[in-house]
């Protein structure tokens, strides 16, 4: 598949706050509905956005420094939803973290670390790059 360039995307840029999370989610869901994405995939899209955007909201801009998130969405071909999340916060590759050990018994399980694991498993493809001081996360769903 051709890698879409930024002109192919519809963009939404908002400050990186919890209040904006549902607005970002709704923006992508509305785009996805244009290609008749199933309710099942829409829930996965919503989940992946919650996990990835919250990571940025909570950790990308420390010390109360207000930053923003650019969210791009495009439909490059039949049955494909392409999401690009861009922030200019501290460099962080979410895919560099090892998957949590999901086979551990309850008392040994850590409360956390599951978000990115869910993202990897729910999305069809996830890629990270650091470019021009920005974190760029591309997420692809086959609808």
């Amino acid at each position, binding site marked *: 598949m051709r890698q879409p360039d930024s002109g192919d995307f519809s963009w939404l840029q908002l400050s990186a706050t919890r209040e904006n999370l549902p607005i970002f989610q709704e923006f992508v869901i509305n785009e996805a509905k244009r290609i008749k994405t199933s309710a099942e995939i829409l829930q996965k899209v919503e989940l992946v956005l919650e996990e990835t955007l919250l990571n940025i909201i909570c950790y990308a801009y420390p010390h109360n420094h207000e930053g923003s998130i650019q969210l791009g969405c495009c439909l490059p071909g039949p049955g494909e939803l392409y999401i690009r999340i861009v922030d200019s916060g501290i460099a962080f590759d979410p895919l560099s973290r090892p998957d949590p050990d999901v086979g551990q018994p309850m008392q040994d399980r850590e409360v956390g670390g*599951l978000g990115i694991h869910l993202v990897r498993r729910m999305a069809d493809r996830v890629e990270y790059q650091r470019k021009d001081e920005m974190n760029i996360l591309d997420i692809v769903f086959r609808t």
Partner: protein
Amino acid sequence: MEISSQKMDKALIIIVSGRLDTTTAQDFESTCLDLIGNEKNIVVDLQEVEYVSSAGLRSILSVGKKVRSDGGSLIFCNLKGMVREVFEISGFASIFNIYETREQALEAA
């Protein structure tokens, strides 16, 4: 998200509906712990839960650890769609006992 409970002979049933996400997870955790009190056998019915994220899982795990450390057991029933899938992917389907129906869960409690 809404939570209600029902006291049966064998167990306390906690019935959850709506979404278990970053905005509701904390409320879920504190409400569950309030409802549980000193009860030992807890069945959580997730029939009406349509969405769970890692924030919801964290709260579920916290409640599970608390119940276990008090010598009780927390079991789940009626997982649907993406809730079931999230439980499976995260390994929660193997750390908690999960039953298809509330009746089966009560029998096991």
